[in-house]
């Protein structure tokens, strides 16, 4: 029998791997991938709670909002990455240490 805890464990592992990715990557695109993993871990938790606690539909609505904001974050983040690449000729996050050109 699959219970709520099983899904929460998957969400927790997604979050932990995303945290490690954000903390250890030097590549800015890799850091953004870690953020996507973290948001997905939260989303799995939202939908699992919505299913097993029987509180209407609000959990799924919140998951949809998270998906929308994640898409917006990815678009802006990758545009910034491209701008940084054009300026510094690298997307190593350690080299991008200036706020001006």
């Amino acid at each position: 029998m699959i219970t709520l805890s099983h899904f929460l464990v998957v969400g927790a592992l997604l979050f932990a791997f995303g945290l490690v990715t954000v903390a250890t990557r030097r590549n800015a695109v890799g850091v953004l991938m870690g953020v996507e993993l973290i948001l997905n871990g939260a989303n799995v938790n939202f939908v699992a709670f919505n299913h097993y606690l029987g509180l209407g539909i609000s959990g799924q609505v919140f998951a949809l909002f998270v998906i929308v904001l994640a898409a917006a974050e990815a678009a802006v983040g990758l545009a910034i990455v491209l701008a940084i690449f054009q300026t510094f000729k690298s997307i190593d996050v350690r080299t991008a240490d200036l706020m001006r050109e």
Partner: protein
Amino acid sequence: MLATALVVAFVAYMVTQVLRPAALASPVGEPGAMGLPDLLFYLIAAVTVAGAAGVALSRNILYSCLGLLAALLGAGALYVLLSADFVAVTQLLIYIGGVLVLVLFAVMLTNRITEVNVSNASFGLFGGFLLFVAAAPVLLAVAVITPWQAKPPPELAPTTRAIGDAFLSRWLLPFEVASLVLLATLIGAVVIARKEIKADEA
């Protein structure tokens, strides 16, 4: 070294004081009676977690992208198992069709393909491992130990109509604000990414 010792001591404390009594107190389910849905869940969860691990540990950023694909697909399949059909389709359309393609574009545009093998260097694999063993046990302990007041899940039913009603009645203001955010994102992304071309024209 002090931080390392602190983390190791913390994990040892968690394992001995929290996880082991809980594991002894509550037998994890009854053995046997493992049907097809259970097997399906374990398969999908394995794919999801393996994809996430690939994102975190792969040396090649293209393999990281493939790991992200596996993780996102697995999460979508988990939504199907949780009877959230609309969220699952949205995950497929927006994450796989939008975000992942965007990430792949960024990878292809910012990496010279010949040096792609060294382009995903990660520093402090040891530190990352420490971070993982510091973060994961807490979350896993909370997920496993807490006595959730779970009701028997309702039977599978389509959710699209309910979600549409909720969006246009109770969540109307966040819905409209989200559309504003998307408009601002669209304009902002274009402005940020086109900056260099304008400088060339001037």
